[in-house]
Each structure stands twice: as structure tokens, then as C-alpha cells.
């Protein structure tokens, strides 16, 4: 097993979460993300976080792997949090310098953003870590099936999604190799101000882009050679099966929402 779960990586284990139907997991993930936006105070937010922690434990994927998966996003989250703290107004003002100020509302909003980003990314990681990509694509295809009536190419979109998910770990590995290659030639990615650091990323982005194009071209050729055609009907190896556990999981999510409503009133 890989020592890091990143968005898009599946971890083959046997757990109650793994056993759920991919459609249930996809619905629950979307439902959970929406619910997170209704948990705007401390107690509902804590409740939503505890529910997620319970799901993480039930998935049997080691917590440190989820943490490793969240780490790459932390820098983006922290930048957003800092911007929120420095540029929000309202509430009690603690400090200000020109048009920059730190206020009580700004700090509250920053915490809220930090919490939302963290739980949403982690919940999405649970979905991809416990569901094989092709099953996830089938579930997505099922979910957007009504769009077929509007002539939307549902099957193609879902396969595209599954391939995109499969490419994420590959692209992350590419980034590491390219950065190591640049470091070995004297590049210091941690030196200089923000602009300089962004400029240093340019020699990473260009080869990454070229590599990604190469990967996608090779994969397209391999898929065609294996009989994939945009116009042909396909069968599916993994059949999605709705079980009693899926009904129970959806009911439990309803309980989570009732909990949010009650805690919002406190």
C-alpha cells in the first residue's frame, strides 16, 4: 500500500465504508459537503467534524494517511485564511495598518474557512480512498444520467472523470521528480519572496505540462488499441449493488442533519 493517500488514490481494504455502494458514497459526500455550509457555529461544526472522524476510523485507512493527503492543500488553505484575517471587516477591531485590519469577524470567518476546507477535502478523500475509480465513474454516470435526455455524453464524462482521478497521483509523482531534478541543478524553491518563488515554479510547470500531454496521448492510444471507442456501447465489470447498509447510511446522514439543525438553535 502506498504510504500516502492523495485525492484520487484508492486504498483497497475491507471496511463498512468500502462496502457501501459507490452511488451511496457519492450522494453522501455531496450531501455532507452541503451540510458543512449549514454548520456555521462552534457546536454544529464540532458535530460535523466528529461525524467525519467516525467515518475516517470506520474506513480503516490509517489517519496519518489522510493527514498526508491533506498536507499538500494546507498551503492554499493557510493563504486563504490569512487573506480572510487581514482583509475582512466587521466586529471588534484588534489591529489595523492602512487598509489592512484584523477584526473579530475576520478571525471567525478565517476559522470557518479553515474548517470547511479541511473537512470538505478530507470527506472527498474518504470517497476516493474507499471507492475504485471506475466504480466512482459509474456512480457519477448514474447520478448525471438524467442529463442524457439533454444529449449530454454522460458515459464519456464519467470515464473522463475516472481517468482524471487516476492521473492525479501520477501528476503528483511527476511534480516530485521534476522538482528533485531542478533541485539537483541548484534550484532553491524556498528562497526569495512570493514572486521569486512563483518564478521558480515555472521550470516545474513547463515540463509537467509536457509530461502530462505525453501521458494523455499514450493513454488515448492504449485505450483505442484496447477497443475503446466513443461511439460503442460498453458493458461494466463492476455492477453497482444497493444493499441494506446503503439505506442505513443515508438514514444516518439524515440524523447528522437533524443534529446540525438542533445545534444551530443552541
Amino acid at each position, binding site marked *: 500500500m502506498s504510504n500516502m493517500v492523495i485525492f484520487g488514490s484508492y486504498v483497497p481494504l475491507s471496511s463498512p465504508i468500502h462496502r457501501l455502494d459507490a452511488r451511496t458514497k457519492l450522494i453522501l459526500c455531496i450531501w455532507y459537503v452541503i451540510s458543512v455550509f449549514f454548520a456555521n457555529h462552534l457546536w454544529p461544526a464540532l458535530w460535523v467534524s466528529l461525524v467525519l472522524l467516525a467515518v475516517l476510523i470506520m474506513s480503516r485507512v490509517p489517519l496519518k494517511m489522510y493527514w498526508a493527503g491533506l498536507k499538500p492543500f494546507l498551503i492554499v488553505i493557510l493563504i486563504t485564511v490569512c487573506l480572510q484575517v487581514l482583509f475582512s471587516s466587521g466586529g471588534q477591531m484588534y489591529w489595523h495598518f492602512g487598509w489592512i485590519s484584523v477584526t473579530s469577524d475576520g478571525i471567525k470567518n478565517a476559522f470557518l474557512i479553515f474548517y470547511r476546507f479541511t473537512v470538505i477535502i478530507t470527506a472527498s478523500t474518504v470517497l476516493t480512498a474507499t471507492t475504485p475509480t471506475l466504480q466512482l465513474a459509474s456512480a457519477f454516470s448514474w447520478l448525471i444520467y438524467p442529463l442524457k435526455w439533454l444529449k449530454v455524453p454522460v458515459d464519456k464524462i464519467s470515464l473522463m472523470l475516472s481517468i482524471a482521478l*487516476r492521473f492525479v497521483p501520477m501528476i503528483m509523482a511527476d511534480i516530485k521528480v521534476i522538482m528533485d531534478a531542478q533541485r539537483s541543478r541548484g534550484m532553491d524553491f524556498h528562497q526569495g519572496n512570493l514572486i521569486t518563488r512563483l518564478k521558480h515554479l515555472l521550470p516545474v510547470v513547463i515540463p509537467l505540462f509536457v509530461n502530462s500531454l505525453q501521458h494523455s496521448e499514450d493513454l488515448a*492510444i492504449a485505450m483505442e*488499441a484496447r*477497443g475503446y471507442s466513443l461511439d460503442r456501447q460498453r458493458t461494466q465489470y463492476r455492477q453497482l449493488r444497493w444493499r441494506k447498509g446503503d439505506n442505513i447510511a443515508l438514514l444516518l446522514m439524515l440524523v447528522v442533519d437533524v443534529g446540525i439543525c438542533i445545534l444551530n438553535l443552541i
Partner: protein
Amino acid sequence: MREIKFNHVTFKYPNSQKILIDDQSFTLPTNKWISIVGHNGSGKSTIMRLLNGLLQPNKGQITIDNLVVNEQNLEEVHKLVGMVFQNPENQFVGSTVAEDVAFGLENYNVAPEEMPMIIKQALATVGMTKYENSLISDLSGGQKQRIAIAGVLAVRPQIIVLDEATSMLDPMGRESIMKLLRKLHDDGHYTIIMITHDLNEAELADHVLVLEQGKVLANGITEEVLSNSKLLKELQLAPATGEQIREKLISVGISVPDKYLKTEEMVRWLKQKLN
């Protein structure tokens, strides 16, 4: 199946002046192991992509027995000619072994209830049964290529093309693939076409085709083609180990058989001499 025939085939990409395959006609035997050797850009991969129908010739015709390789027969051609590519990372669609082996079956509308048995059989053939539910990303390069071969075998092709499929593997991975190819060849059901730069691999075949700048320079049984040291030197292809030993022995005045010896044959000959 009796023969694979290229008849005055010419190919160049649209908007390109460079002719990659230049009016070539040749025949390849079937149910044999065939090696295609030549430099980078000599047209080896292009020839095989034409055979699989991934590319269509600008002129000429390719036939596999009576089946013409063209856009009308693509499904049949893809089914008949399976391909394994160079980079194991770039040819998988599924995240687990079973899902990926199933990809070809899904494309050919095989009933889902038949798939588990076919997948098991394909994995057993390549010796990867216990990895059925493993993540592909957790496998070694050699194992990934064996899974790629299983994906091809699952749709029961008659021709298996390996496009430099061992060039990115370590020696162990390379050896495991060569052993597997030997096994498939001995089964007698498949025509194996292997594109390679390595004459040690090429000499394991029954038949060799040499390409240079889109032209076939040699096409015949392995010993006949690889004994043409003048041609191989012109193409700067390093001879196989057995041939290198033979040349060294000749250079120090030791009498050796006046015919091409594959490395294994050379070892046997040396052993006999030393005894």
C-alpha cells in the same frame, strides 16, 4: 491464420513532409515469434500501429489473412491484434488489476457475469492470480507489464504486439517478461511481434524484420538476418552476446562454427569444447 501482409504501404502524418513508411511490401509469418529491430525513428512503432489500425496507411493495404485492416473493420482488428506499450504507467485505465484487465472486455460488450472467469484465466496465464485485487500503482514495472499482457490476453487476440515493452524495466522485470513470452509462444496460439533495440532479445524470435528510415532492409528467419553482421554494423546495432563472443574468439584465432549461434547455442558450444 496464415499470414500478415503489407502491400505497398506508405504512411506519413498529415501536415508532415516526412514519409515514415515508404511504399513497403512484405509478409510476416503467423504463429511465430517475430522481432522488429531498427533505430529510433526507423518506423518500427508506426508499422505496428498500422497493423493494429491505430493509424491508416496513405497508400497500400494491410491484410491479416483475408481481413483488410481499415476503418470499417477496426473492432475486429483491435480484437485480433493486442498491443502492449513501452511505458507501463501510461496504459492503464482501472485502478485495480481486475478492473484494468476488464477494460478491454467492457469495450467488447462481454457480459459482466462472464468477466471474473476470463480475468482469472488471463491473470493465471501471466502468473499474477494473487494480485487480482491489488492496486496497479503498488506493482513493480515487470508486474505492470504482465498485467498489461493479461489485459490483452483477456480479449483473446491472435497477434500480440509488444512495442519496446521491456525497455523501461529492470533486468528481473525484463527476464520475467521474456519468460512469459516464451511460454505464450510455446502455447502455439499466438503470433508474438516484439519491437526491440536489443539483439539479445531479438535473437529469441523465430523471425526478424529490420527497418531503417521507413524501409525494410531485411526480413527472414532469425539466424539468417542476424548473421548479416555487415548490415547490423551499418545500422550500429550491437550484436547479441553469443555473436560478440564468436567475433572475439575469431579475432584471437580460435576456430568457431561458421554460422550464427544464438547466445544459448554459443554457451552450449563452449561447454562442449571445454569438456
